[in-house]
């Protein structure tokens, strides 16, 4: 469910949610949009909702605040421009509604079934000597498959407080299991009224309601720092309760600090491997002055010991190094903090972890945090299922006011994978294809892309302004990679991780032109364009959907169905190929465009033609401007393929020339000459004019040229070929005979190589 922060919100869900969010009526246990179970708004902590729109058009979403009893406090419609982000301050919404509520829940509901919105809640503030910040992933209850949701959290003090937000219209009996690393299983039960928000101390004996005073997370220092696992089960329907938790990470002279606890439905976990992408380890460039040490814990919710290995991969300047850095057997129903050795690391955060276990999917949970004690800078890293159904991510980016944004991508597979990255900045969608080797982590700094003006695969660059927008990435199918966006702020020592997933599939491919017409010695090009769609219903996607604006590079392979007619010259695997005509005929250039799960084979029809005859379009005597007393005749020919009446017009620009067996003397003394060199006939049409032109001789002066022939000049420089023999030209001042006829030829007359047909 953590992955459900992807706000692909269905109209159906929206309609159902309308009833659920009614101010006075507790919601029914039905499918719903995204929910943040807990917001906090008090003098110490504030909540900020970030929305991202991946659509190519403006979209809107209703943001609804609910009080602890489930009553609507305020609803505001937020409109997001194409490929944009928006931040919604909860404090502002509460003030607008004159509400003094300090905690509650948020529901986000899209208005359009095609809307693709990601949302995430950030809770931040300032304790006496340190910045406070933690992220809350929004939950999509309608995607919940089981009645259970689980989490692990590394190294906290006291009892975590979990927010239980009912989405049901019945009172639910909630069973909470705390797998405390020190004390083992602590079980408690609590009734949650319809629609209510209950804060529950999950790791004290029998549990306890936590009153919603300001420092609700403080006041329990009874237990030393250790790691825990949490399991929450309802007796209601799946999705009847959403859960979010907060633990006390530190409480010292610098004040309190908290750790987020994001819950995941075990039924949605597809593998026994958890991936942590782009973990700050050691000195980190984008968070200057801080040296990070990762902390890791694992909880085994299963009934058998889980053999667990921790592999660490860091990407250096020349290679990826992967090491087994820890091995632990986690007993059934227990939690262990895993000691990690000192690790060699990349300062660009190109460091990732993979936790593998022998437990069944959904039984072993891992939690990781990277801490810089010297500066109290903390980066919580969300673990991802190695076989998550999403194949991409959708995040905001921001480089304003000294903020750094770094997209961190990790290929956790054993083969190279293509990652398609698109970064939207107003109307520009910068897009680039990155290939990551096995177990390679790639950090892509938005600040660097902008500062250096790096070009994308289309030659575009990101402008210096605006300094924020939306970005996304995807692999060609799911299970091929993970990613997140890390936003770092020197002021306040913030490290915000954005983890929302999305599904993008190859949903079509086309070629252009649809028909490529070539002369038999010509070359032309055909181009393939893949279409990518964001799935709005299921993940993994079904190779269908609404195309997005990005044009990622794909796997493609071209072939000609009849190589006697045309052939591909050069590479057959590029988006654009060169096709050469060989012989007259019809064939096709097919291209296989594929990902691991989707295949499309569009084709361009290739028509190869060869000039073979001339077709008379018109033949007329006209009066040339300024020369009224001299005969002037002009014949317009269309170049055709051979075949007599079945000849086909060749409308390509074609090169021809005329030749004669002999050229006679012009008795009009006008110096008429013929054009005997090859020249281009636009659209395959020849206009041949005959006249001795204005002269002072008059009468029947003129000349005779014998055996006029038209020749096609092949573009490859080979010998010209006769396509039409017209015959003798007798061009006199008072009469013009072409091919033995003073009378004009009717339209439709055809001349072939041997003469009139």
């Amino acid at each position, binding site marked *: 469910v953590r992955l459900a922060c992807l706000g692909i919100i269905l109209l159906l869900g929206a309609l159902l949610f309308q009833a659920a969010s009614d101010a006075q009526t507790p919601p029914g246990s039905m499918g719903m949009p995204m929910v943040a179970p807990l917001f906090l708004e008090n003098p110490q902590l504030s909540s900020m909702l970030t929305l991202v729109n991946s659509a190519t058009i403006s979209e809107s979403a209703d943001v609804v605040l609910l009080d602890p009893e489930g009553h609507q406090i305020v609803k505001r419609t937020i409109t997001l421009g194409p490929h944009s982000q928006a931040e919604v301050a909860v404090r502002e919404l509460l003030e607008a509604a004159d509400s003094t509520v300090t905690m509650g829940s948020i529901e986000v509901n899209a208005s359009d079934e095609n809307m693709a919105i990601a949302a995430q809640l950030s809770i931040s503030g300032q304790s006496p000597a340190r910045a406070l910040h933690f992220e809350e992933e929004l939950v999509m209850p309608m995607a919940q498959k089981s009645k259970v949701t689980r989490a692990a959290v590394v190294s906290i003090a006291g009892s975590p407080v979990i927010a239980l937000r009912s989405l049901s219209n019945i009172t639910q009996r909630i069973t909470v299991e705390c797998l405390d690393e020190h004390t083992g299983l602590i079980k408690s039960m609590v009734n949650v009224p319809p629609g209510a928000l209950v804060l529950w101390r999950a790791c004290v004996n029998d549990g306890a309601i936590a009153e919603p005073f300001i420092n609700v997370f403080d006041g329990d220092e009874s237990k030393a720092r250790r790691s825990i696992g949490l399991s929450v089960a309802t007796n209601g329907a799946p999705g009847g309760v959403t859960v979010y938790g907060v633990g006390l990470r530190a409480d010292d002279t610098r004040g309190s600090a908290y750790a987020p606890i994001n819950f995941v439905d075990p039924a949605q976990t597809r593998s026994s491997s958890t991936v942590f992408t782009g973990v700050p380890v050691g000195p980190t460039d984008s968070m200057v002055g801080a040296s990070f040490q990762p902390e890791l814990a694992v909880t085994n919710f299963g009934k058998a010991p889980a053999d667990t290995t921790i592999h660490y991969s860091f990407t250096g300047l020349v290679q990826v190094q992967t090491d087994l850095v820890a091995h632990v057997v986690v007993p059934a129903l227990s939690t262990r903090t895993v000691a990690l050795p000192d690790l060699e690391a990349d300062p660009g955060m190109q460091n990732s972890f993979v936790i593998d276990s022998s437990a069944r999917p959904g039984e072993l949970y891992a939690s990781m945090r990277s801490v810089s004690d010297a500066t109290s800078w903390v980066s919580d890293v969300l673990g991802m299922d190695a076989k998550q159904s999403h194949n991409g991510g959708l995040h905001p980016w921001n480089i304003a006011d000294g903020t750094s944004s770094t997209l961190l991508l990790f290929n956790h597979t054993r083969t190279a994978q293509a990652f398609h990255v698109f970064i939207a900045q107003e109307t520009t969608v910068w897009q680039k294809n990155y290939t990551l080797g096995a177990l390679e982590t790639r950090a892509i700094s938005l600040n660097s892309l902008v500062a250096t003006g790096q070009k994308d695969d289309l030659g575009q660059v990101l402008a210096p302004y605006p300094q924020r927008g939306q970005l996304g990435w995807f692999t060609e199918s799911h299970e091929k990679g993970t990613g997140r966006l890390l936003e770092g702020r020197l002021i306040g020592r913030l490290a915000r991780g954005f983890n929302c997933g999305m599904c993008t599939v190859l949903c079509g491919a086309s070629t252009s032109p649809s028909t490529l017409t070539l002369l038999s010695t010509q070359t032309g090009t055909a181009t393939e364009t893949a279409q990518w769609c964001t799935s709005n219903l299921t993940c993994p996607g079904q190779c269908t959907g609404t195309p997005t604006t990005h044009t990622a590079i794909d796997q493609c392979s071209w072939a000609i169905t009849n190589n006697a007619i045309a052939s591909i010259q050069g590479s057959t695997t590029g988006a654009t190929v060169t096709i050469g005509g060989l012989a007259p005929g019809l064939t096709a250039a097919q291209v296989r465009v594929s990902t691991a799960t989707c295949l499309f084979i569009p084709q361009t029809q290739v028509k190869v033609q060869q000039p073979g005859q001339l077709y008379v379009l*018109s*033949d*007329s*005597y*006209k*009066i*040339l*401007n*300024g*020369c*009224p007393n001299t005969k002037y005749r*002009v014949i317009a020919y269309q170049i055709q393929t051979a075949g007599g009446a079945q000849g086909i017009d060749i409308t390509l620009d074609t090169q*021809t*020339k*005329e030749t004669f067996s002999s050229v006679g003397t012009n008795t009009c*003394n*006008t*110096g*008429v*000459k*013929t*054009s*005997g060199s090859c*020249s281009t*006939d*636009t*659209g395959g049409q*020849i*206009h*041949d*004019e*005959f*006249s001795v*032109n*204005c*002269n*002072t001789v008059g009468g029947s002066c003129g000349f005779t040229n014998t055996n006029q022939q038209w020749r096609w000049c092949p573009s490859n420089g080979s010998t010209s070929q006769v396509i039409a023999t017209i015959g003798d030209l007798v*061009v006199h001042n008072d009469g013009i005979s072409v091919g033995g006829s003073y*009378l*004009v*030829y*009717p*339209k*439709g*007359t055809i001349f072939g190589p041997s003469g009139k047909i």
Partner: protein
Amino acid sequence: MTLLCVLLIGFVSLACAQQEIEPLEFGSVAGEVVDQNGKPAKGVQISALPMEKTHVMGKVIYAVSGPDGKFVLSQVQSGLNMICFAKETELYPDTRFSASTDDLSLNPIVKVKRDETTTGVIIQLGRKGVKIIGKIVDKRTGLIVQKTGLLLYWSDEPSKSVETTAALDGTFEFVVAPKPLRLEVSAPGYKHWVSPVILAGPGETKELRVNLEPVT
């Protein structure tokens, strides 16, 4: 305007009458075609009519304006040239010919130098011509008449004419200036046929059915 045309035609006639035969040299002409509203016009055929020297017989060299209206016409004889245009699909007749236009001032006169390109030539399309189409059949049988001779001319100035024959299927088509016209049709074994004056406005198409009466 009339005076200008007279002068222009006279000048061209005089130029054509020169006896001096000089070696032919070529340059190019580049410019833009715009419509009556000044917007780029694409697909217009551009050709040059030499005014000082005998023009080359044979294949007519055309350029075609692009989507931005721009064109480059090569193999233009050096010296003064009248730049002519045509787009008969949109009823702009070829202004090379006398029956096609009554406003020669629309054809720019440019000087072309050997191996150089004369740039900045602007062609503005004038008013459209008219299209005369029809079919010639035997009045009694309705069958197509072959070997016809057609002469279309301005009724008030018969020297402005076009002479051709009908297509093999008996049809014919002209695109000429929007002037009062007359069509004469002859064919072996049939009485000579003369149309009444044909009146059509710019951009209009007139269809004629010519029923030839056999000679008894």
